[in-house]
């Protein structure tokens, strides 16, 4: 189907979505097959999962490549642009809700379930009969001391540096945007480069911190509810920083190829919004996971 010039662009039939579905199915089915099914088992063969991941990456290149081509050809009018913007905003909202499930688990454990295990409210007998002597303290790995004694990552070491790094990267991406809007491509490319570099530095420091936690502090994913919430929250955040940095890296490469104009650069803005979103999530993590 061809669209009339100037009207809302309706794409031709596309094979990319079904490729994506096949990739998603292959990846998740392969992952499920490899899972041990018990917490002390070993992962099985992950080949199928990686094949699925490769299909998804192939789909992303193909699908986004097509969209970029259409965009550069001037196929999209202002109304299409609004649809893309809405899509990105609501996608980020869904991500916020995903994180809120894990923040909810953290608050629930700290404010309700751990005090209850220690006998607060009408739970005196729970404590007396099931978990005698367990005190309401945070952090905790539970009354059974799951995973053994552990020490904490201090808030004012690497986590604080990481806060500064991420906040700075929020500034550099905005500076890049200013450059783009006034047609200064040099500033755009430099700003994006700095942002990606700061993102990579953040991820590297997180990786170092994880290694330190595992080998020196005995703080692991298996360290009871503290380890669970700590690693799941920071881990999913780190994953999102990685995704955001990849998005910005693509924007950097596209900028260097001469894509984007002062008026037409939604992809850049979408990546920047996403970057600000991971920034804000980090502030929540810094306050509630590391600091308080």
């Amino acid at each position, binding site marked *: *189907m061809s669209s*009339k010039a100037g*009207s*809302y662009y*309706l*794409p031709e*039939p*596309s*094979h*990319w*979505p079904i490729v*994506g*579905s*096949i990739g*998603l*199915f292959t990846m*998740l089915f392969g*992952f*499920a097959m490899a899972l*041990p*099914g*018990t*917490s*002390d*088992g070993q992962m099985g063969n992950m080949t199928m999962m990686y094949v699925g991941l490769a299909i998804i990456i192939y789909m992303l290149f193909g699908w986004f490549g097509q969209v970029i081509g259409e965009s550069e050809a001037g196929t999209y009018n202002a*109304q299409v642009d*609004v*649809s893309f913007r809405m*899509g990105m905003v*609501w*996608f980020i*909202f869904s*991500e916020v*809700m*995903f994180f*809120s*499930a*894990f923040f*909810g*688990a953290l608050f*629930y*454990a700290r404010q309700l*379930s*751990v005090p*209850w*295990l220690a006998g607060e*409210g009408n739970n005196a007998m729970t404590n007396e009969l099931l*978990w005698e002597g367990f005190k309401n303290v945070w952090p905790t*790995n*539970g*009354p*059974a001391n*799951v*995973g053994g004694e552990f020490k904490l990552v201090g808030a004012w070491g690497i986590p604080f540096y990481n806060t500064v790094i991420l906040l700075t990267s929020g500034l550099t991406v905005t500076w890049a945007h200013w450059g783009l809007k006034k047609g200064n491509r040099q500033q755009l490319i430099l700003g994006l480069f700095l942002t990606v570099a700061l993102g990579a530095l953040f991820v590297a420091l997180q990786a170092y911190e994880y290694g330190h936690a595992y080998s020196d502090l005995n703080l692991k*994913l*298996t360290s*009871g*509810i503290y380890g*669970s919430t700590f*690693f799941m929250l920071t881990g999913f955040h780190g994953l999102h920083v990685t995704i955001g940095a990849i998005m910005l890296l693509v924007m950097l490469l596209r900028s260097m190829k001469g894509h984007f104009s002062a008026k037409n650069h939604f992809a850049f803005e979408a990546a920047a919004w996403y970057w600000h979103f991971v920034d804000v999530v980090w502030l929540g993590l810094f306050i509630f996971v590391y600091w308080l």
Partner: protein
Amino acid sequence: MSDHKPTGITRWLFTTNHKDIGTLYLWFAFIMFLVGGAMAMVIRAELMEPGMQVVDPLFFNSMTTMHGLIMVFGAVMPAMVGFANWMVPMMIGAPDMALPRMNNWSFWILPFAGTMLVSTLFMEGGGPAFGWTFYAPLSTTFAPASTDFFIFAVHMLGFSSIMGAINIIATILNMRAPGMTLMKMPLFVWTWLITAFLLIAVMPVLAGAVTMMLTDRNFGTSFFDAAGGGDPVLFQHVFWFFGHPEVYIMILPAFGIVSQIIPTFARKQLFGYASMVYATAAIAFLSFIVWAHHMFTVGMPVAGELYFTYATVMIAVPTAVKVFNWTATMWKGSMTFETPMLWAVAFVFLFTIGGFTGLMMGVAPADFQYHDSYFIVAHFHYVLVTGAVFAIIAGIYYWIPKWTGNMYDERLGKIHFWWSTISVNVLFFPQHFLGLAGMPRRIPDYAVQFAEFNFMSSIGGFAFGAAQLLFLYIVIKCIRGGDKATDTVWENPEGLEWTIPSPAPYHTFETAPKVK
């Protein structure tokens, strides 16, 4: 532009057309409805008499689990999205959905997710057998190995729902024809706008819940394990924070469909349009702050029991606004009872029964008496079968002439209606008595004093199941031929969808209509 359609299998695999995708959703939902229905038949066959006769208990449990999951995620939700795809662009005068390629992906994830879900039944250790609510620790410590496949199936269903919902919101907010202001939109569009918001807000929370399950099962986290400082009840909180909005995700579009049908056959405008919009929004808002009424017996502080009781019964207010609106629309209307109207009127009566039993269980001290009994089974089947499913069937009869260009067989449609409505009450009404008398849900065997009502219920179940095969026949017959439908189909129905030819051309409103 010519009205050419792509042909062959790739038309359906690669389509970016909202009508094709709507059709795919509706057929997928119908197939899943029959699969989930077959599981219900297994359940009713086992429960027809006390004692164990048809299946073993573990398989019975996986039947109740899969029946619930398939009907919720495979039948009702996709059917509603199918209606949204077909009708929303036509109702607001848009040429298609806002993001047509993503629309295709939203659908084509579903068959893969459905395959992954159903495949668990054939795995070692059997399929998930912990109930559709998959409470920890049944779904973590004590679950079969296939549970990880179930978890990823839920993830995929979530991706699909979120992308579908984003598309619907972008379409409604960005693609309306000039003059189609928000407060002129058909109510079906309004209910879907709000439903889509609910979907984006809660499907990620469900994804979080199953992710915690996944890591508790495989990687040694302690979210739902008290020994590590977690709490199995945390699972219930996270699940029901998703689960309560989820039930409105299934029923709000049903409200929308019924609000389109009743004015047409009462030949009056909807009694109070604005109040319907506000009531829908109020229900959606309240759905976020009542979740723990599903967990009254879990051991909450009294303050929690009180708060969740009061918040829950407040939902009766906007819901009553809706029911009175439908009633007032019919009041002194020149009513006729074509098949869609019969289903819609039955919806109003029978959904309201489900609403009332919901009110009973919304009150914590009363709920203690019939929690997890057959009373809750009767309640949610009244709201989901005679509520959501009846509205879906009503909507299909209402719009299928527009989709196919042919009238359905009115005589068979009426037989389908009366057969279904009588049998569905034989099926579910006795379950209220069973629950009040103390029969627990999710058991394959029961004490002999429950025998008579269970027998009745099973007879009703088989009859209701058979009636849906008649429905399949009616739909196929309508697609293949029948009296030609006029463009308006009904007598002066309101809405842009009736201004285009029947069957609706492959592309509609490429030039936006002007709405006064």
